[in-house]
């Protein structure tokens, strides 16, 4: 796919000149972003379903779609974004020093990162956690059935400690076999040296795809650690933080209200006040962020609601086929919950 930066910059400029500068011109980051005409987004340098380059060289994934949604909210154009692939080691300095406007890079929210690194996390795009993969023929369907199991894992990671805690709390017997590299551990699991392999659940789904016979393996529903992944911005620009936060909330709210990229035009005529406020038919919530009032319409039309991006990148519509699990909406028993737009 070709990207025409000039026309994008022009589009950005057009949006800029349309939005009224009088009310809610936005914070310094938004102004910079509008001036340069694109969002600079830090993503991972390759993680299946979260951010990975496709055959055409375009970045795709759930983290990537968060950036595209932001570009849609600001510019009405999902291509008004540039991606900076970052390694785990350089991501925080890159954000702090302004190389990127936000970090959407499967980063676990922790207190230390939030408080000591001068970052602000703006919500959870994916509730991850440590899980287990087993062979279907073993008959195990729950992590509570793993008593007496041999567990393969990587050395020197927190996964080993989490496993120890999990089994001790339940008074279950287990044996751990730790390997230096993930590939070795997975091979040992595949060859039957251990009954289960454990790492972050989203990673297990990616690993399953590379096994000789993916359908013969089952990823257990339980997670035994908390790894909430979400975008982060620099501290000190509340307006920018709000925009990133509410971009995600808009997608979650849209799913909850049944607004999707396919029915957005009908929904614009909806009488439901919640939908009318989300889509900017009533109120001026977009302007209060320094955006246009149809900001959420642009997100949903061009990127989709939360359910759509989950499905497309990691869920049933992708090769990974990750179940929604904890990422279901709160109404359906999951954890995805967005405050109302009011």
């Amino acid at each position, binding site marked *: *796919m*070709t*990207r025409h*930066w*000039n026309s994008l910059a022009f589009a950005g400029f057009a949006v800029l000149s349309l939005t009224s500068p009088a009310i809610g011109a936005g914070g310094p980051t938004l102004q910079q972003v509008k001036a340069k005409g694109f969002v600079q987004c830090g993503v991972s*340098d*390759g*993680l*299946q*379903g979260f951010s*990975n*380059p*496709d*055959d*055409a*060289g375009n970045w795709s994934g759930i983290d990537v779609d968060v950036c595209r949604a932001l570009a849609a909210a600001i510019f009405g154009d999902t291509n008004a974004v*540039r*991606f*900076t*692939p*970052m*390694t785990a*080691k*350089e991501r925080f*300095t*890159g954000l702090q*020093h*302004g*190389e990127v406007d936000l970090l959407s890079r499967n980063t676990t929210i922790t207190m230390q990162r939030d408080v000591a690194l001068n970052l602000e996390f703006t919500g959870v795009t994916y509730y991850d956690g440590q899980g287990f993969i087993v062979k279907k023929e073993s008959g195990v369907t729950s992590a509570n059935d793993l008593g007496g199991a041999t567990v393969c894992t990587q050395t020197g990671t927190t996964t080993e400690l989490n496993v120890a805690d999990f089994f001790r709390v339940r008074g279950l017997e287990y044996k751990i076999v730790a390997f230096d590299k993930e590939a070795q551990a997975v091979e040992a699991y595949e060859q039957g040296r251990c009954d289960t392999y454990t790492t972050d659940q989203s990673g297990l789904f*990616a690993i399953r*795809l*590379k*096994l*000789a016979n*993916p359908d013969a393996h089952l990823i257990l529903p339980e997670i035994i650690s908390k790894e909430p992944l979400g975008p982060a911005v620099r501290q000190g620009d509340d307006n920018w933080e709000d925009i990133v936060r509410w971009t995600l909330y808009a997608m979650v709210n849209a799913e909850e209200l049944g607004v999707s990229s396919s029915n957005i035009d009908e929904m614009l005529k909806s009488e439901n006040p919640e939908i009318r406020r989300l889509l900017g038919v009533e109120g001026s919530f977009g302007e209060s962020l320094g955006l246009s009032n149809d900001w959420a319409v642009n997100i949903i039309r061009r990127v989709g609601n939360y359910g759509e991006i989950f499905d497309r990148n990691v869920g049933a519509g*992708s*090769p*990974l086929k990750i179940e929604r699990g904890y990422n279901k909406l709160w109404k359906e028993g999951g954890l995805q919950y967005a405050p109302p737009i009011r």
Partner: protein
Amino acid sequence: MEGRRPAISVLEWLRVNLFSSVGDTALTLGGALIVWFLLVPALDWAFVRAVWTGDDRTACIVKDAGACWPYIGARMGQIVYGFYDVAQRWRVDLIYALGALGLLWLTLPFMPYKRVAGVLMLSAYPVLAYVLLTGGMFGIDPVPTQRWGGLLLTLIVSATGIIVSMPVGILLALGRQSDMPVFRWTCTAFIELVRGVPLITFLFMASNMLPLFLPEGAAVDKLLRALIAVALFSSAYMAEVVRGGLQAIPRGQYEASKALGLSYWPMMGLIILPQALRIVIPGIVNSFIALFKDTSLVSIIGFFDLLGIIQSGNSDPNWAAPNTAFTGFVFAGAVYWAFCFSMSRYSQAMERRLGAGTKRGQ
């Protein structure tokens, strides 16, 4: 090479060369076994059981599949150009073509005007490459360096390292042997400091630490920072290689040049360096080859060189299959090998040509 030997029969050749004694026979059979157990499965994997056509992972997850070549096919554009905009790839093609022409001109012994070609390749070509690849001038669209990658990036980083390290390395080597103490100390300190630190550390400094020291907004392009780090690093190593050559030149050569009334620079340029550099050609090429492979380290600071782009491709769920990652690595290895082997062959040819007068080391 000696004259052609008289023709001998195949059997006789086998007896003389492969089975002349019990020991030789054992070695031959052992070698044949190794070939059988390594080469045959490798060929089987790469060709016989390999998957050749397909559009996504489903083609490559068949039972007992070997290499997944359609994955390489689908990724070829990225492997060669990185994320360079497809409509702008002609610019990279042009640079590739000019570079190849220039290299041929310089390396083929019978081409005339080598000096002109050399000057053009070292002056006009890098400038042209810079202007064309970055764009933003003369009405061509800018392409940010973040989008450069694949073989393009590998070649840029290694070419920069090679082109810069040669003159800087020579100057550093001369400086280290200089009679002027401040100059000597500075050069020695630089060489020892840089050689004492791994390239990874250097790259990390350039990509993560340097921005912290610079004032806000004075951001130097990340690729440029990495290029400077690589160039400084390879210069320090080159300096030591060249110093080895300088020290191998007998004292008499220096004295003879001075007796001819030559001052420092003509002495070095006309008498000492031509001999010293010829001696250290293997060392120089060794450094170049090491540098070429070291360029893959830029992937740890978020660039996608040849190896990095293949690794990032492994994270595409549409191609996730048991063999895709391995296929990618095998392909990357083959490309690295092809480049390094050609460098090595060229250096051998050059040694033979330059060493025609002296029979040393033949």
